């Protein structure tokens, strides 16, 4: 344990010092790593720890992004005040989807598919109803002041992403040592056995999806404040859902550091393909290439390394 604590301290020191030592664009990449790790962790808490694989986690992300943006743009709220409301909205959506789906007894693939359909419904609604401005998307007025949740220097948004990531790691850590977390793992491993042991499976699954939804919504607000623009495709598109799932699966679903390691790995692949594209002219279209690699990694991880890259560090399988 002390070795892990030492590593964590070293990692934290490096993460704190990093933006002071590198140029701005690397600071932004670092910010993206921690931000993706954070939304990945929100997926991991439900999909990894509790085994409730979701294909539509973006529904929470978009709910958060739109809630805070609408409060801010349409009603003149301060974004810092809108943030907790956005999280609450994400939690409510998580609670609602969980109650509906788990009441109907949906499990496994069926749960994954229904979350995808919920995200589609939200995307189409955001595209059609007037208060989201439809397909045009919503612009937040640029006014870079800390009070407005906008920062001139990328270093502050970096530190905020780092803080979010640390909070999410602490939540995941808490799950590994609390009875709540133990119940979730029991549900993941064998739902019927967990029920036979007296666990209220339905209540626990609803709780975890509410928590996960609130976290993911926090990420949505953060994203909207960073880019000052959202539209239905960004906020409710399938790409972000896949990204959250990927970083967790690649790093190690159901582990504390899985999403962070997955996020580092994917960002590394991204940068390598970007470099390749600049060297090999035939590959100048970067985005698809890195996604091809992600897809192959997902297949390989599920097939060969179900505990993700984390298991390489640990050396022993989780499922004894």
């Amino acid at each position, binding site marked *: 344990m002390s070795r892990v604590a030492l590593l964590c301290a070293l990692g934290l020191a490096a993460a704190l010092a990093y933006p002071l030592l590198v140029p701005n664009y690397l600071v932004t990449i670092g910010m993206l790593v921690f931000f993706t790790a954070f939304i990945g962790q929100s997926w991991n808490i439900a999909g990894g720890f509790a085994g409730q694989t979701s294909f539509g986690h973006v529904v929470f992300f978009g709910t958060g992004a739109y809630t805070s943006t609408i409060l801010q743009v349409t009603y003149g709220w301060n974004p810092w005040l809108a943030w907790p409301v956005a999280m609450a909205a994400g939690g409510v959506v998580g609670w609602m989807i969980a109650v509906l789906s788990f009441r109907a007894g*949906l499990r496994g693939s069926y749960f994954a598919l*229904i979350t995808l*359909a919920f995200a589609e419904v939200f995307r189409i609604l955001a595209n*059609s109803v007037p208060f989201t401005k439809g397909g045009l998307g919503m612009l937040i007025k640029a006014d870079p002041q800390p009070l407005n949740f906008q920062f001139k220097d990328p270093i502050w948004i970096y530190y905020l992403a780092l803080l979010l990531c640390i909070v999410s790691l602490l939540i995941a850590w808490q799950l590994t040592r609390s009875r709540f977390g133990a119940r979730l793992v029991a549900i993941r491993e064998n739902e019927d056995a967990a029920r036979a042991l007296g666990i209220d499976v339905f209540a626990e699954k609803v709780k975890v999806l509410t928590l996960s939804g609130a976290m993911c919504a926090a990420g949505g607000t953060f994203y909207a404040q960073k880019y000052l623009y959202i539209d239905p495709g960004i906020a409710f598109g399938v790409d972000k859902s*896949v990204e959250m799932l990927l970083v967790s699966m690649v790093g190690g679903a159901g582990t504390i550091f899985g999403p962070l390691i997955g996020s580092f790995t994917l960002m590394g692949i991204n940068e390598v393909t970007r470099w390749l594209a600049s060297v090999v002219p035939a590959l100048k279209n970067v985005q698809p290439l890195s*996604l*091809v690699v992600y897809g192959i990694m997902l*297949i390989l991880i599920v097939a060969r390394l179900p505990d993700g890259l984390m298991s390489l560090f640990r050396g022993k399988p989780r499922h004894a």
Partner: protein
Amino acid sequence: MFDPAFLLAGVLNGLLAGGIYVLVAVGLTLIYGVLHIINFAHGSLLMLAMYAVFYLWRLIGIDPYAALPVVIAGAFGFGYVLYRLLIGRYNHGRDENILLITLGLSIVIDNVALLFFGGDTQTIDVPYAGSFVEIGAAFLPLPKIISFGASLVICAALGLYMAKSDMGKAIRAVARERQGARLVGIDVENVFAVSYGIGIACLGAAACLLMPTYYVTPSSGHAFVLVAFTIVVLGGMGSFAGAAVGGFLIGITESLGGLFLGEQLGQIGISLIFILILLLKPTGLFVSKA
């Protein structure tokens, strides 16, 4: 407010679209019924087949309808090999695993298509594209009617094959009781691969029938995947008759949704039906008879 003739046109258009959806959904439901896996790559494989039809036309000048035998055979071979090399090795264990593997597969296929074919929308100009048939107040594009008829013929042929041929009987035996099928000497792994191949061959046929009136982009798969899943859960996972009825219902829903709610909001009907069926009657409206 709406003219009944207008409504009739919407229903007829929906039926025609539904005819092709049936073919897509039959492939998906066959794969589910026999292998018990959810093929999330279904839409992406359809997109790939549509590109095959497009390039056969663009490069060699083969008419999409004339390409049917080639594309069906090619799609069958592709599906068979894909099963042998990838799907078949991992279709045991937790059911989410194969879902994730087919998700990975769809990500790879979509983005390889984007790399090689570019993001542009591609269409085929067939000489008969502008021909219409007048039924009441409805003007129906001729290619849609041909495709509809061809789709029904192919579905009937598949049904006959499943009912009469030795392989069809073996497939049904494996779908019902794989252990028992193995005991009577059926090569179950081969049946799995053939079933997956037939499922993908249905996509090949659908691609040929779609291309005269539809377009293809690397993201076309997304447009179809939720539609196909909705049809299949509506009809009951694994049920052929269910997939047929579901296909028509969804075609009409989509057409009328577009008519009453507009192009954007009209799409919501399919997702809502999917959610409602899963929540209220996950076995589908029609009970499966394997």
